[in-house]
């Protein structure tokens, strides 16, 4: 099993190298075909034909930060659920175990609702 695991991931490692080389190689290859003629006006940041005012790399009031936090929490919770689901055995399922999962999902559900409610308050 152990050697099999790495044998299974050898194509993945090689493929990852290929996948990295594919865009890099394409970008390099275009260098020989295309003709670059940069001008200061062309290299200006695109702002619909106007001279850009101010910079984009500023403190940006991004209103979806809460979603990012919930996302991380949910990601971890979903991994727990995945482990549970992978080892789910219908023949050995007990009512206590089932109740535990229902409780877990209910807590997740309630927590999301609370967070989203809070988010609506914090929003803007």
């Amino acid at each position, binding site marked *: 099993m152990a050697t099999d695991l790495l044998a299974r991931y050898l194509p993945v490692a090689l493929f990852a190298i290929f996948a990295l080389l594919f865009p890099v190689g394409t970008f390099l290859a275009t260098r020989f075909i295309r003709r670059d003629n940069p001008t200061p006006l062309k290299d200006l940041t695109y*702002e*619909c*034909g*106007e001279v*850009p*005012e*101010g910079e*984009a790399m*500023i*403190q*940006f*009031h*991004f*209103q979806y930060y809460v979603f990012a936090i919930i996302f991380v929490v949910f990601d971890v919770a979903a991994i727990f659920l995945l482990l549970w689901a992978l080892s789910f055995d219908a023949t050995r399922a007990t009512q206590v175990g089932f109740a535990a999962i229902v409780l877990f999902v209910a807590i997740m559900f309630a927590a999301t609702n609370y967070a989203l409610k809070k988010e609506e308050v914090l929003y*803007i």
Partner: protein
Amino acid sequence: MAEMWINMGPQHPMTHGLWNLRIKVDGETIVDAEPEIGYLHRGYEKIMEVREFQKNVVLTDRLCYVSSITWSHCYCLACEELMDIEAPPRGQYLRVITNELQRIASHLMWLAAYGPDLGLLTALLWALRERELFLDLLQLITGARMNQNFPRIGGVRNDMPSDFGKYCRKIIAHFRKKLEEHEALFEQSKIFQMRTIGVGKISRQEAVDFGVTGPNLRATGANLDLRKLDPYDAYPDLNFEPIVAYEGDSYARYKVRMEEMKLSCDLIEQALDRIPDGPYRVKPPRRAEGEAFRRTEDSRGEALFYVIGDGDDRPYRVKIRSPVFSNIFAAPIMMRGNKLADVVAIMGSIDVCVGEMDK
């Protein structure tokens, strides 16, 4: 938190033409907006001062390429007022017919632009497909598809072909069926309702205060249609009720324009029924003195031409009042507090035509 100004335009997919909407955003919420126009200014009012009255019709045709007849029509009305003449009845009916055809074509162009604004490119192709029919009709009667140069001071350029009425009725019947498809494409889509209902609200008070006219004003519940209030040409003879919606949001503006297309179909059919025989044009005088103005219900709102003559064969001063010029500066009111993505849903529903706005 840092607020930043974003330029939307002049080279931006949202601006159908050359203008710039500067938006101040805080994150994704719009704090303020400021239209910046003039990229297409061609000095119409100055140019018109050195051309004869009749020749300016060609110029006014090019004010807005999607509704050229309504513009030259308004100019001709103002000049007729100045010269104290009136078009003969048949000419008046022909003007009504071409005006309404042009209005449908213009609204279809708006619909075609509104779809891609919301990410629905299919609507563009469908609406342009239907617009072709009306361009064909206009070509049949005027000979051109885009800058028809059809109205004249004192009437219209030529009579309509004998079989025009037949084709017209056929196409309108076909169009009525197609319009149902369009409504299904837009209104039955939950996403379209999510994007437009409650977005870009403007109250009737504010709309009137900012000089908003046309379908945008009627979407706020004001029953104000110049075809009814200040009737010109053959409109007093026709039976119709202006279209009104009450919400004042993007969906209401959409709804008003869709209903107006149906109304225009009705008007064309009525005008075809009642069109009298006779001359279609009188000869206008070459010179004129005094001042006069006329306003018409353009497809985008209240269009006004104010013409001053000083006894020469050229106008001394011409003033063009474009509805979009006023409407667009009411957009910041509609935008404040909405999301960045709503800009397109709002600006698209206002129906901007840069040519007539920048003169």
